């Protein structure tokens, strides 16, 4: 298959998440649900049936007392450069084909086979187990950004793609270049709302965008880098244990060392 082959784009939207700034407050998860019309669930404690396009994981260093450390890791879709989910879809309901490198997911096309979910090691893909049922009246507060999905289809974070479209429209209106958006012209809801600004967003190939440098910083890493999926989401932490945990300790050359934490 197409593994190992990363499709290159002139613009590559990427996220850099500073784990040393994420307090785990959850505002990103809420903003994401609001932007993307995810219906609230009565029992959201059953995490095996929820829809969380961005999910904040809790990581710990396994120590106790004053040695104990915790880090929160928001996990959106990684928009992999070499996505595992795209080639497996039997009906082309997901593709990575558009300038910007965002992996799309088209709900009216999806047949709900869940093969892409089986393919994604980040668990970024979610299945609509039920039709979206909003408490009475709450459908008046639906966001115009994302169509509501029926049950039986897969969905995932798309970096609030509609905001990308809107940014391009605005650029057109103002006589700017829609294909060369300025830093900050396009921001996903999670990045915009984060009260500590832990989430930076921009074109990782554009020197004018601050994520360009951030993604190359010495403390930057990507999750499961060794799998070769080439994610467009980068994480930054000055804490070594966090960085090492991100790739199964592969960086240390000590395979399996992460087992204690799993």
């Amino acid at each position, binding site marked *: *298959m*197409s*593994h190992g082959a990363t499709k290159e784009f002139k613009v590559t939207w990427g996220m850099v998440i500073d784990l040393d700034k994420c307090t785990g407050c959850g505002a990103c998860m809420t903003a994401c649900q609001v932007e993307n019309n995810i219906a609230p669930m009565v029992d959201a404690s059953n995490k*095996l*049936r*929820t829809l969380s396009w961005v999910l904040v*994981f*809790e990581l710990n260093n396994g120590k106790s007392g004053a040695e104990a450390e915790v880090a929160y890791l928001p*996990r959106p879709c990684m928009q992999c450069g*070499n996505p*595992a989910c795209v*080639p*497996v*879809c*039997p*009906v*082309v309901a997901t593709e990575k084909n558009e300038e910007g490198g965002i992996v799309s997911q088209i709900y009216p*096309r*999806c*047949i*709900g*086979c*869940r*093969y892409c*979910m*089986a*393919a*994604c*090691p*980040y*668990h970024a893909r*979610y*299945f*609509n*187990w*039920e*039709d979206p049922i909003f408490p009475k009246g709450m459908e008046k507060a639906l966001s115009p950004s994302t169509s509501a999905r*029926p*049950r*039986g*289809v*897969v969905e995932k974070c798309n970096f609030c793609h509609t905001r990308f479209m809107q940014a391009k429209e605005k650029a057109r209106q103002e006589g700017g270049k829609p294909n060369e958006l300025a830093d900050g012209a396009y921001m996903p809801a999670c990045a915009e709302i984060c009260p500590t600004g832990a989430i930076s967003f921009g074109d990782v190939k554009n020197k004018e965008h601050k994520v360009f440098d951030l993604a190359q910083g010495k403390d930057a890493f990507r*999750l*499961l880098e*060794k*799998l*070769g*999926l080439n994610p467009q989401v980068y994480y930054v932490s000055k804490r070594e244990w966090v960085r090492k*945990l*991100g*790739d*199964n*300790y*592969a960086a240390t050359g000590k*395979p*399996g060392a*992460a*087992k204690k*934490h*799993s």
Partner: protein
Amino acid sequence: MDRALFPDGLERCSFGKFVLWMGFISAFFLFGLYAMLLIFAKGIVVTGLDNYFGFGLWITFDLAVIALGAGAFFTGFLKYILKIDQLKNIINLTVIVGFICYSGAMLVLTMDIGQPIRAWFGYWHPNVHSMLTEVIFCITCYLLVLIIEFVPLVLEQKQLNKIPFLHHLAHNMHVNMALFAGIGTFLSTFHQGSLGGMYGVLQGRPYAFREGFFIWPWTFFLFVLSAVGSGPIFTVLVCTFMEKLTGRKLVDFKTKALMGKIAGTMLTVYVFFKILDTWAWANNYLPSIGMTFDQMFYGNIYGKPLMFTEIILCGLVPAIMLITPSIRNNPAMLYTAGILDCMGVSLNRYLFTVQSIAMPILPFDKWQFYAPNWAEWSTCGMIVAFGFLVMSMTYRYLPVFPQEQGMNK
């Protein structure tokens, strides 16, 4: 009562007994049917599947029955292409078993997808890169082939065969059966392989991911081999089970042993490569991504014993038993080896489906557990019941076993 419909010169149980039997099986069928309708009405939220286990019992079941149904294409290939004539004694049965397995698998797949009404999108908007597209294409086409192979047998029904047109149609179809067998072999090889390929390409699932040849990961070939290494013997097991049930001899042991030999040979090749593949995976691939062999297993239900059971007890052992003539020619040993063989292949499909997605890939994630619920079990049960019903009907009314009359004099 329905004697006129029996195959020439064959005895069958009384109609009352048959109705009772069919009623008993239908109870399971109807219960599964209820679950299926519920699933169509409410969606697969009624099953035990979840965000981690998008694939579960259904996919395992599909893969297993498709592998076990491989007896149809491989026996057809040997009979019609390689002209091993002795296989005519069992070829009808392989076709019926194949038909049941594939039609059942198709039905389960329809339930399994979230939007069954869009199932045909696989043809309308195919993604040629997806192994699943290949599977969808091949298994539906192959099901057509199986139906074409099944039709002449139906037309040979005593009363139908009296109609000259149908008689001739059946005859002509028989004459051209080699063509269909050929097409079937091609389609079947590909989708058996694609089913393996489906897992082998999962770059994000280290338990399943494999390097490979050209676009095909090694699992592609391993799945083909394991299917042909188990399908023929599964047919033998079905045949023997029917003999026990009906108390009549249906296929001579020589033919069964031949099927055992065929399966055994293929299984041996398979086990050889499977061990090689596992070794390379554990020693080369896993370390390259920062993982270890030990990390692939957890506790009892995801423990190493499962893998060893699959490869050694249910792989190597039956392979040796089946290729050793002295063991193979002992009926009890042949059947034991057959059962082990079929269990091994099913276990293989289970591990690739469930274990590979149960394993935490994110280093801070946990092993996940999955138990199929009643809706999944009962719908699988429905397929099995469907198989029993079809088998019972065909056995009663169609001349499935050419040797039966001679052997039961």
